[in-house]
């Protein structure tokens, strides 16, 4: 389909498609290790190679957490990316304060606490210093600040979201195609079980079995990881 005309035509109301794209490109450029370069630059701060892996793991989870929270407070994509980067940079800078402990989980817990404080700190500053008055786009950014308590539980919920996603990726290969589909279509997309049974040409009972098995595995892995990330 020739959509040249209409592509642009739609983008005109889409979310700053053109220019955000060019901003994103810098984030997506990868170095030789396949790590987006912004992450790579954070890595340089982390001297110990063991800690590097831990840090990568850690920032993978927290990056979308911070980004989402920023977006929810009205920041546009580029600004949210920017804030995310600043929070993670400030956390990475603190990593030198860490006293090495053989137990990797403790490192994450400590880092989670540092990150929580950095997020609260940075989000508190999300108050644009622009002219008053009117009911503009800018106005909506001047929302009342959430309490630190609320921000804390928001962080936990967002982190849980990322852990679900991480685990879903990880355990995907442990299940057969149909089992995974049965889970995804019914539990995530919320398609009625009977319809999915039809579509996958399986019995209703086997759909229930499949979705429950995947769910149990998901719960087990998320619970483990969550304990690992829990703040000290």
């Amino acid at each position, binding site marked *: 389909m020739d959509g*040249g*005309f209409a592509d*642009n035509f739609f983008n005109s109301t889409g979310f700053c498609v053109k220019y955000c794209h060019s901003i994103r490109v810098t984030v997506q450029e990868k170095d030789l290790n396949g790590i987006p370069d912004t*992450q790579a630059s954070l890595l340089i701060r982390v001297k110990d190679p063991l800690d590097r892996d831990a840090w990568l793991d850690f920032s993978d989870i927290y990056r979308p957490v911070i980004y989402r929270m920023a977006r929810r407070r009205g920041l546009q994509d580029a600004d949210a990316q920017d804030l995310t980067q600043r929070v993670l940079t400030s956390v990475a800078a603190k990593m030198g304060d860490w006293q090495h402990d053989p137990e990797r989980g403790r490192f994450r817990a400590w880092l989670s606490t540092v990150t929580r404080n950095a997020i609260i700190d940075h989000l508190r500053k999300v108050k644009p210093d622009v002219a008053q008055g009117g009911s503009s786009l*800018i106005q909506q950014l001047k929302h009342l600040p959430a309490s630190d308590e609320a921000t804390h539980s928001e962080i936990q919920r967002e982190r849980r979201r990322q852990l679900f996603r991480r685990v879903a990726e990880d355990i995907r290969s442990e299940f057969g195609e149909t089992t995974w589909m049965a889970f995804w279509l019914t539990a995530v997309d919320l398609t009625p079980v009977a319809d999915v049974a039809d579509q996958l040409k399986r019995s209703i009972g086997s759909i229930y079995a499949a979705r429950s098995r995947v769910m149990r595995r998901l*719960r087990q892995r998320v619970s483990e990881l969550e304990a690992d990330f829990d703040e000290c």
Partner: protein
Amino acid sequence: MNAETTHFEPGQLQRFLDSDLTDAEQLAAERHLEVCDECRQQLHQSAADVTWWEDASDFLTDDEFEIVGTASNAIGPTAMMSQSRQSTADDAEADAIPTDIRQIIAWLDPTDDPAMLGRLGGYEIAGVVSAGGMGVVLKGFDRSLNRYVAIKILAPHLATSGAAKKRFGREAQAAAAVVHDNVIAIHGVDESHSLPYLVMPYLRGTSLQRRIDEHGALSVVEILRLGMQTAGGLSAAHDQGLVHRDVKPANILLDGTTERVLLTDFGLARAADDASLTHSGVIVGTPYFMSPEQAEGAAIDHRSDLFSLGSVLYTMCTGRPPFRADTSWGILRKVTDAQPHSIRDLNPDIPQWLCEIIVRLHQKDPANRFQTAHEVADLLGQ
């Protein structure tokens, strides 16, 4: 054993989840699940309690705040879903179709024509042209008039905002009343299953944005021709009391063969504002072409469009927007406070008098700009 009546025993449920039953037991258990709601509940409960089920649906579904550019994003849940879909033959078509578009398709009325995706109002839907933050554009076929049309539908998540819906309808009606060679015609505005949509001609061509992306700055003759037509289209809308609010190269379409300017998306930015205020807290749009009064949230009138027109002309002259910064905030601040870099430093081919027109359009105070688009169209047409 009678599958219909024999419930699971406690240990059996666990073994069932572990796939630790004999084939016969397994089969019987599945047959029992066909009919027994009680055991289904127990099975679910022992897999994970209800908050987990709710979270799974909530967390694994993409929402409007997906971050782009992280390693994990590339193999996110959606990608996993498309991978798993590929293997089912009858779903092959749906593979590449993102969720929001699938939603729209699902929401079309069925059609008898196998070549079409579905029906919407009186139109046969032939395909999805594009999708973005605000909605989806479909390619439709109007049987009664034997022509293709572009149908723009407000995204379902925006349609939940009553204010946005009303605004979408009202602005579209107003835009439909503007009849001018340089304003895209609107065939109709309607609503189906409570999603509002508007119908426009389906055209081949490009946009000014794409033209500039591909060729950089334009020639003076081109700038004057496109600038005059854009100002002409704006003046027709302003005469009707309609402010565009989102004049930018992406909204200036260049019709296929003649490259006639067609302005599109009148007032829709406003519908998006309403939706974002009441719904998601997201700002829709890019601030590159905003006026200072828009950036400050002050009241705006048609002269706001003239500032934006100045920015469009500037972009045609230099190949880049006048106010640039790394963040949206930076851009907004420059729009309100800074003077753009001199055009002739960037492109000496631009005559001084054209630069002066743009400088006049870029006055921060609307009272110091040209007062009507007519004036600008006349000046550029001379």
